[in-house]
């Protein structure tokens, strides 16, 4: 290995002859003798080679796409990209030294403030990895709040989230039990919920809008049935621009994914797990929390607080192992929400609902298709039922440069030929026309 003049000087000052001597403490018996990896490449070569490799990806700008199911394609204003591109934010770490990190700390406090307002929860942490791990942590926190060894999950949730929750539950020896959905409305089957509320059940998780796009209309009844047990509600925070916040409906914990606020889809990661709770539960909460305070001069300031819940202090007794989280995406969310503002956010949410309404009724009018499958109110996705095999339809659409919705046949066999379609403000009328034209051709 070649070394610069400075390195040689430094070695000399250390009284060493070679770099090898710096590694003299690594025994021969564990030496690997170098890396069998290619030589490095220049920036321009790297760019060319990545361009070639990634050019086979068909992205939302080159292929019309109707996927949702937890990750959504929304517009990201340029100002948001510029703000999250600031290298003072990108290249900093967890604000362990608050005096020199006020920018990140205040931005995170503003993120918490926005999410608190949207969800109606007074306490919001500064992020979890994503919605799936937020759910896993909520299952554990529910047990800390209410005791018990069983947790109920609505069946109308994302199978991805469900699988992650299974792992978190297994680690804590918690049993997960499914609660069915009503076959007509798509919302929680209250009879099934009632029958499963046995001793030892710590809480219940349902989503609104749920995996089928249906807005849950019985939150109050659910709250009543749960009594003292923990009510955990999963949200698409974009929908909260217009929908009643779960805090008003009696939620103890609210989770979701704030990817919809200013983060690209990025093949599903990084996204940002949103996590809020009632104030009385804050000491049982996982994750970093930013609090408002003052410095010794009495000036407004922000710092990490209630750290005695966390792994670096409480070690094996911590509320969670989380350390690195998704701070930069929290900044993105705060930037997004402040750029679009109240008026913009409500307009975007309304556009999503309108697009969903229009697309679903237009699909419904094609013979051989029915939409939406469920009668409840929807936000921006819905299930399309088809006479023909949905996998075949998917393949045909692909040949026409259209990625249809997510085929549910394997995940929810009881729903038959079902496909989950999402549409957002990114779709124009012409986009819908193209999809409809293609579906009509299939009929």
């Amino acid at each position: 290995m070649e070394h610069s003049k400075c390195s040689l000087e430094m070695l000399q000052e250390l009284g060493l002859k070679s770099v090898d001597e710096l590694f003299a403490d690594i025994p021969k018996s564990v030496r690997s003798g170098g890396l069998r990896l290619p030589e490095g490449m220049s920036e321009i070569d790297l760019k060319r080679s990545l361009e070639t490799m990634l050019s086979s990806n068909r992205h939302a700008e080159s292929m019309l796409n109707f996927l949702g199911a937890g990750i959504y394609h929304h517009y990201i204003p340029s100002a948001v990209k510029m703000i999250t591109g600031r290298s003072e934010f990108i290249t900093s770490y967890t604000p362990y030294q608050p005096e020199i990190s006020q920018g990140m700390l205040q931005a995170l406090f503003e993120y918490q403030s926005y999410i608190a307002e949207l969800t109606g929860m007074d306490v919001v942490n500064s992020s979890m990895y994503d919605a799936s791990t937020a759910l896993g942590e909520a299952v554990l926190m529910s047990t800390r709040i209410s005791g018990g060894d069983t947790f109920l999950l609505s069946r109308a949730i994302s199978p991805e989230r469900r699988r992650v929750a299974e792992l978190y539950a297994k680690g804590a020896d918690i049993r997960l039990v499914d609660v069915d959905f009503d076959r007509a409305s798509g919302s929680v089957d209250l009879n099934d919920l009632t029958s499963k509320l046995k001793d030892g059940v710590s809480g219940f998780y349902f989503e609104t809008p749920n995996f089928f796009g249906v807005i849950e209309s019985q939150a109050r009844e659910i709250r009543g049935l749960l009594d003292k047990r923990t009510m955990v509600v999963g949200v698409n925070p974009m929908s909260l621009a217009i929908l009643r916040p779960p805090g008003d409906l009696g939620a103890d914990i609210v989770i979701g994914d704030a990817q919809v606020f200013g983060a690209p889809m990025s093949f599903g990661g990084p996204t940002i797990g949103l996590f809020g709770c009632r104030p009385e539960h804050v000491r049982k909460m996982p994750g970093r929390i930013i609090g408002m305070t003052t410095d010794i001069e009495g000036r407004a300031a922000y710092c990490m607080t209630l750290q005695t819940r966390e792994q670096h202090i409480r070690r094996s007794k911590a509320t969670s192992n989380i350390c690195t989280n998704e701070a930069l995406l929290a900044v993105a969310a705060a930037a997004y929400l402040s750029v679009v503002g109240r008026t913009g956010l409500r307009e975007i949410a309304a556009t999503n609902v309108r697009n969903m309404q229009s697309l679903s009724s237009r699909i419904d009018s094609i013979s051989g298709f029915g939409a939406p499958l469920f009668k409840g109110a929807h936000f921006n996705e819905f299930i399309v039922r088809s006479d023909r095999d949905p996998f075949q339809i998917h393949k045909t659409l692909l040949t026409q440069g259209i990625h249809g919705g997510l085929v549910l046949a394997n995940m929810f066999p009881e729903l038959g030929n079902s496909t989950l379609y999402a549409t957002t403000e990114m779709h124009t009328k012409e986009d819908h026309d193209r999809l409809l034209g293609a579906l009509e051709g299939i009929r």
Partner: protein
Amino acid sequence: MRYHQADYDVPLLFEACDEQKIDDRFDPTIGGAIPKGLLRSDLNIPDLPERDVVKHFINLSQMNFGVDNGLYPLGSCTMKYNPKICDEVVSWPSVASIHPHQDPSTVQGALRLMHELEGMLCEIGGVDAVTLQPAAGAQGEYTGIHIVRAYHEARGEKRNEVILPDTAHGTNPASAAMVGYDVLEIPSKNGCVDIEALKASISSDTAAFMLTNPNTLGIFEKDVKEIAGTLHDAGALLYYDGANLNAIMGKTSPGHMNFDIVHFNLHKTFATPHGGGGPGAGPVGVKRYLEEFLPVPRIIEKDGKYHLDYDQPKSIGKVKAYFGNFGVLVRAYAYMMMQGGPGLEAASENAVLNSNYLKDKLKDDFELPYGGLRKHEFVLSGKPLKSKGVRTLDFAKRLLDYGFHAPTIYFPIIVDEAIMIEPTETESKETLDRFVDVCKQILKEDPEILKTAPHNTSRRRMDEAKAARDMIFSWRGYKKKTENAK
């Protein structure tokens, strides 16, 4: 050289909110699509001109210190410089605008990149198979310990305990506990694992031992093979916390040290920026006999085509939705391709050189517990500061005044008044020399200056007790508190 951070009073965005009225021309029912009972009556978030929002966040960014601002020698965190091209490629639509549920035939480039990244990590880690799914180091540990549990359960064994040294990072015990294990911390001896204490604590109940090597003090655990042998003889597994991989690339690997499971912190060793505390990525590598337990899906290559394989009956399942923090994976891949094998080895060499250089220059001004070489980081004791009537905390705060981020302090716990310094390979000799000069100068300063430091940052020392007492975590919470007080 002088330093002063930008210093503004930046009101919260929400302070502009109160005077604003909700727009009553807006029809939230969207023409009756949503029943009124499901709608909210108000939404108390501010409407602001873009101009004001940009000013707000730019001012905030100026009150934040990152690696691009200067030396960030935060021990254990590997705050190295991140090449900008890696950020740029992540914004390409072929990275940013692909959806995780897309048909695999439409994301072949992404799958290939991940598959190749797994291969490179196998080589660096000395392991046979890698999952990219975990979102961060701690989640890598969590994944790894679930694999430990699955492995023992598959052999029909119930083992209840995970052992780790008292120098272990807090995430290690927390992760083990979340998988359902009792955690046993053993005291260190001369800064390393006390092999006798370890042997005495191993039993048929031991599921795994977690270790990082070089350890938290930056010392290479020479007896690592003996440690591994002892554990394997007892039927237990050895877990490698990859946070300290930056010291050893090309020299040794967790696999060569006989570890069974390792996580990699891509946001440390592989130059993906930390983002103010994330996103990161914590891929996990295992030896062949543990591969069947890795999370699903696995990425399989067959005849030049990439597939997602969910058919893994012994898999632990999923630790995170989808495939991992793809945006972070792409950055790490780009970095590794630019460095190449020789570049990564050189990175480790220079990281270790920088660390030993600084250690030698500073050890006489502080105390260096346990002599000898260090790897990528070293831990000083700030005990000598006590004779000045100040503490490590004061010294750390004073460093901020000179435009240096503070080292990690008070970790590991076994060193009194610990100061943990990790310069990384990307800092020049000039920067290190200036850091040394500043450290020496601070030691000569009036103790009052240290105790009241920092002076040149956007805020002075925090009233952290007030934050914990007031418990104000949002504007909403603030409003409620102030209204209650009236």
